């Protein structure tokens, strides 16, 4: 990160609801102005709690939260000036769309004329110019979503929080909205902290993703790094599809790790998260980085594998192999003439490079 003050800083944040268990164990995160940071994790991992602490709806049990360099732990939510989009949109059902949008301006005592102008502008921004007079209930899910986003932006907050805002939409709409939010972020230069459990959503939209599990950030990195260089087995498994081979470290040589798999095969992998010879390790590799019938010289690992299942996906054939003692090894085989000969029960050579194959914690 550059040397400028982060817009948001979480410092050693802990949170407990019952005084017995910590929901958030030790959370540290800096968000730079203009950044789109996603907190990603399974439900119950503490990500929403962190967002609620930032919004001011939950007090942190320990640690400091800074906004623009100032501790805001004791600042009530209505003084924080943070825009928020809620999971269920939280559009006020008894107000029209325009009244909903005008609400944050009204409480800020913005004059009526300016208010109307800004509402109109906000409605145009989300392509709902003609819907100002409607009630939220009369809008479709996607339209409600747009209104909720517009409402969170209308008072020009420094920071916008989004709590699984696309969870209630169907797949197509969700993808479309992902792009719209991403474009808004880019056009308006917003700083966004986004919470989701959907990794595709996180990968599509974010500058950085903090992967949560069990109250701890497992890894916080740019989407590509997260996918290519997961720091541990949880992240590798949570982000994208992933093949896991279990084994024991037999030699460490710089970046290169030799692994003896549980059924006796020897693999070479890149050292990421193993300490010493003799450690148990999870070797992780992506299904699209495995080659069928490779030239022996182009790969570092070469095994013969038995085809267990072929699932036709159009552009690729999802193939399940048995290799190194695991029968759930998935390979995305490109749908080409050469590969059309694969048949259930065949044994074929498959291989992959050392740098695509990561030795992680067990």
């Amino acid at each position, binding site marked *: 990160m550059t040397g400028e003050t982060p817009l948001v800083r979480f410092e050693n944040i802990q949170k407990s609801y019952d005084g017995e268990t910590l929901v958030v164990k030790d959370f540290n995160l800096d968000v730079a102005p203009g950044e789109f940071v996603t907190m990603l994790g399974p439900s119950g991992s503490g990500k929403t709690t962190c967002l609620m602490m930032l919004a001011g709806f939950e007090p942190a049990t320990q640690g400091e939260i800074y906004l623009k360099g100032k501790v805001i732990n004791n600042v009530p939510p209505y003084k924080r000036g*943070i825009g928020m989009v809620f999971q269920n949109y*939280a559009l006020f059902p008894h107000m029209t769309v325009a009244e909903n949008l005008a609400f*944050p301006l009204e409480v800020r005592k913005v004059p009526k004329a300016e208010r109307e102008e800004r509402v109109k502008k906000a409605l145009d921004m989300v392509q709902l110019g003609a819907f100002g007079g409607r009630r939220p209930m009369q809008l479709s899910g996607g339209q409600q979503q747009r209104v909720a986003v517009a409402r969170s932006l209308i*008072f020009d907050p420094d920071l916008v929080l989004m709590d699984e805002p696309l969870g209630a939409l169907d797949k197509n709409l969700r993808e479309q909205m992902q792009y719209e939010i991403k474009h808004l972020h880019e056009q308006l230069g917003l700083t966004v902290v986004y919470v989701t459990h959907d990794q595709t959503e996180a990968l599509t939209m974010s500058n950085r993703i903090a992967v949560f599990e069990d109250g701890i950030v497992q890894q916080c990195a740019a989407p590509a790094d997260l996918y290519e260089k997961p720091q541990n087995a949880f992240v590798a498994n949570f982000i994208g599809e992933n093949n896991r081979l279990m084994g024991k470290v037999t030699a460490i040589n710089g970046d290169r790790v030799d692994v003896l798999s549980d059924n006796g095969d020897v693999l070479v992998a890149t050292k990421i998260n193993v300490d010493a010879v003799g450690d148990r390790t999870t070797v992780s590799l992506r299904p699209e980085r495995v080659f069928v019938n490779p030239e022996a010289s182009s790969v570092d690992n070469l095994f013969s594998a038995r085809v267990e299942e072929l699932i036709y996906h159009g552009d690729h054939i999802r193939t399940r192999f048995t290799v190194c003692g695991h029968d759930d090894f998935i390979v995305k085989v490109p749908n080409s003439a050469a590969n059309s000969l694969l048949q259930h029960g065949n044994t074929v050579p498959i291989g992959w490079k050392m740098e695509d194959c990561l030795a992680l914690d067990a």
Partner: protein
Amino acid sequence: MTTANPSIDQTDTLPLKQKLAKTTAIQRRRAFLLTVPLVLFLLISFVFPIGQMLFNSIHNDKVSGVVPKFAVAIQSWDGQGLPSEEIFEIFVKDLAIAKKVREVGRTAGNMATRINYELPGSRSLFTKSARKVGKITEGPYKEALIKIDKKWANPQVWLTLQRASHDLGPSFYVAAMDMKYNEAGEIVKADELYQIYLQNFIKTMWLAALITFICVLLAYPVAYLLAILPLRQSNLLMIMVLLPFWTSLLVRTTAWIAILQTEGVINDLLVYFGVIGEDGRIQMIYNQTGTIIAMVHILLPFMVLPLYSVMKTIQPSYMRAALSMGSKPFNAYRRVYFPLTIPGLAAGTLLVFILAIGYYITPALVGGQDGLLISNLIAYHIQKSLNWSLGAALGTMLLVVVLIFYWLYNRLIGIDKLKFG
């Protein structure tokens, strides 16, 4: 219209409809049969009695049933002076027959009661005359009757009889609205002494409104707590709200007597702590105060429950959204939370007000004299004075008042928006 598809031919549509009707007929019949017990129950216990009440309030045959021929004949009288000798003769003969037959509900006494409603103090005129009328065997009947009692020379008696001879008439509504017919047969205000019903109606509505208002004040915070507390605490609180609900009305009301009476718990405590002197004990029961306290207690759950059911559905994110947009808590509450509770508030208010306006048992037990409501007067006329028609007229007016409020509510809030639970 020509069509390529022969199956959608005009000739085919009818059989299709019939086929559909046939296949659904059994289901519809079965569904209807399931509702039959309830429909019958409602007919017998609700529609019929209310119809009966409406009918009773405008129908009374206590004159035409006793003196049927006279009831027809008197209609030809123009109301000037006294009726003709001929009409007197018919009256005397009718009365003599009634006296002789003594059919239950059709005695001279029944007629006397009926006329007495409108001409207070005239009861004895009828009973006395009925006893002596058998002795009049020949005319002139007019003089003979006036000889028995000279009140028969008063045209007012005959005007009232003429009016009451109509089985159908508004005379009980006239009475129920504190009015009466004057000598000229015009409707005028009743004497001050007899003006009790309108005043009581107004008092009933005022008390019902006050009780409803107190219920809102007490129930709103409780319902809010119920809605936001964790399940375990809210369940406990809910039981405390419902407990009085499960206790007999009579037990609760008598408990209030024990607490509020001049020798009761509260007064004893106040005296004990020296807040009031022994001779300064406060009268809190057998008056309006007692009625208000006991009725608020009894009707409170009817306010809490609809409010609670609405508040339960208000997601906390609404308030959070308002706060995140910069609204102070009170303003967020006023602009967002409160408007969302209006359906429940409206339902509770309507429910409590309508129940309060027709409440009977509690005011009867703890209301004393000035805590009596209109329903107590209705009960009085049905049970004690046996003036059913007047009771029915008052009951009908009460029903109309309730319907007016219902209509008003529908206009202001919309009945479809009400949420009872």
